[in-house]
């Protein structure tokens, strides 16, 4: 392999790890926002616990590796340097959308951002997009899952508050606060098993494209018959990806945690527990039937359902902003992915220079977003509800919302 291939491979790996990191801090809120909002856990404790379970989740299964990339586009068209640049462009689209939604404090799906980036780059890169698969495996579940989780969380919350009348308010809240630690861990574990795998798959496929074909081996079925091929994810890739998503989670995406835990509805511990258990049940049941869902969509639906179940005020204005962000995730990440691929292609097909230029632009854009976010930071201390009684939401919903 030439130096250009080596350079592009390194850029793809670094970008993939960068995406995993943004995935971690963007999605921390899914697992811990309600636990922090109810004071079940201190913010720092919550993100460290979530990071630990994300890391464990990254190691317990590799079955979903490469599922997203290979299920949505005709992967046989990807090869050599141009294939690597296409994957790189997709990652760029996903990273930029993740950072923008983080800046605007909107919980949005990192998986959908990656899918959008892949589809956008594939369209301009002349790679066939499997539209049927995109609709049936991604878009329709994305629309239905928040409503399913909302309904289940609403019913659970309603039942829990009916039971609470016989238990007493103080005991109920204390009990469910302890339960929330377990439910948050369960959601973190589910998140780790799903999200860290995508990046592992992307890096492994890049390594194979580079020439590390020993990572591919025959899959032997019953009676010793070769039934296909399987990927071996190198241990250093697992450690790298698990570490990146855990580090991102531990950083704490406080901006999105604030939205998810405080701005959708005022969450009490029984509601938080109901939302988290409903989310974990929907994610696991869907995974079992082969529908990888966005944990962000599911958990957001769960939090709204928990508000409805208690007949508490749900700030539909905030929910509407989030839904708008969800609608634009795939197209927006797709546009960025397409632009990234097109600009890189200006320097020649599969050019390392093109990839370097795009990497520099994305790094500069990421630094600018971080800088802008520092002007109105949201810190862990502001979100801590363990030391003081619940106060008004940090960033209240607009009047009339």
């Amino acid at each position: 392999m030439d130096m250009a291939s080596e350079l592009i491979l390194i850029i793809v790996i670094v970008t993939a790890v960068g995406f995993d990191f943004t995935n971690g801090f963007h999605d921390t809120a899914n697992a811990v926002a309600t636990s922090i909002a109810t004071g079940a856990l201190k913010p720092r404790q919550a993100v460290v616990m979530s990071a630990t379970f994300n890391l464990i989740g990254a190691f317990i299964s590799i079955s979903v590796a490469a599922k997203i990339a290979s299920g949505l586009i005709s992967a046989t068209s990807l090869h050599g340097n141009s294939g690597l640049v296409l994957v790189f462009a997709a990652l760029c689209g996903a990273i930029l959308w993740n950072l923008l939604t983080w800046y605007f404090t909107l919980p949005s799906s990192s998986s959908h951002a990656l899918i959008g980036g892949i589809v956008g780059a594939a369209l301009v890169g002349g790679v066939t997009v499997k539209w049927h698969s995109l609709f049936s495996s991604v878009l329709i579940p994305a629309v239905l899952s928040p409503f399913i989780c909302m309904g289940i969380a609403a019913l659970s919350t309603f039942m829990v508050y009916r039971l609470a009348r016989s238990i007493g308010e103080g005991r109920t809240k204390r009990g469910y606060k302890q339960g929330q630690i377990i439910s948050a861990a369960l959601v973190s574990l589910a998140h780790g098993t799903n999200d860290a795998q995508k990046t592992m798959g992307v890096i492994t496929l890049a390594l194979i494209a580079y020439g590390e074909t020993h990572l591919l081996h025959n899959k032997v079925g019953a009676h010793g018959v070769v039934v296909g091929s399987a990927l071996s994810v190198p241990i250093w890739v697992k450690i790298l990806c698990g570490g990146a998503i855990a580090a991102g989670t531990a950083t704490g995406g406080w901006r999105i945690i604030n939205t998810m835990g405080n701005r959708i509805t005022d969450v009490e511990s029984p509601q938080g527990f109901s939302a988290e258990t409903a989310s974990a049940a929907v994610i696991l049941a869907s995974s079992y039937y082969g529908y990888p869902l966005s944990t962000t969509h599911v958990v957001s639906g769960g939090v709204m359902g928990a508000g409805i179940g208690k007949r508490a005020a749900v700030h539909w204005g905030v929910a509407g902003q989030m839904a708008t962000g969800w609608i634009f995730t795939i197209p927006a990440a797709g546009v960025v992915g397409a632009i990234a691929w097109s600009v890189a292609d200006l320097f020649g097909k599969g050019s390392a220079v093109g990839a370097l230029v795009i990497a520099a632009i994305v790094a500069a854009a990421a630094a600018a977003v971080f800088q802008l976010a520092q002007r109105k930071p949201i810190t862990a201390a502001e979100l801590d509800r363990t030391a003081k009684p619940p106060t008004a939401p940090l960033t209240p919903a607009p009047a009339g919302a």
Partner: protein
Amino acid sequence: MNPFAAVTYKAVPPSVPLIDWTALWHIVVISLAFGSGLALGFGLLLLGLSRGEDGKRGIEKAGGFLLAGLCGAACIAAIGVGVYVMCNPPKSKPDKVVAVTSSYVAGIRANL
């Protein structure tokens, strides 16, 4: 040059429905059973503990603790099933992944 010139659009197979209603129905029922069941089970555990601690008569206390024990065991079992499903996804799913991954890798090898 039209950048979309090389794009081909895969036709939607007419026999494959866009929504698998059977799977959707199963997902709703299983999620409802586990999600609401766990929340209800945990609520009954707390109720049992409350009755066990505050009960005036011995039988009331014993009944409360028994309820709490049974519900606690049910909650742990439900969480155990969830973790098991995470660690051991169904066999059909990885096979699909292997199939698409194989086609990808075959393409890469052909072009190496």
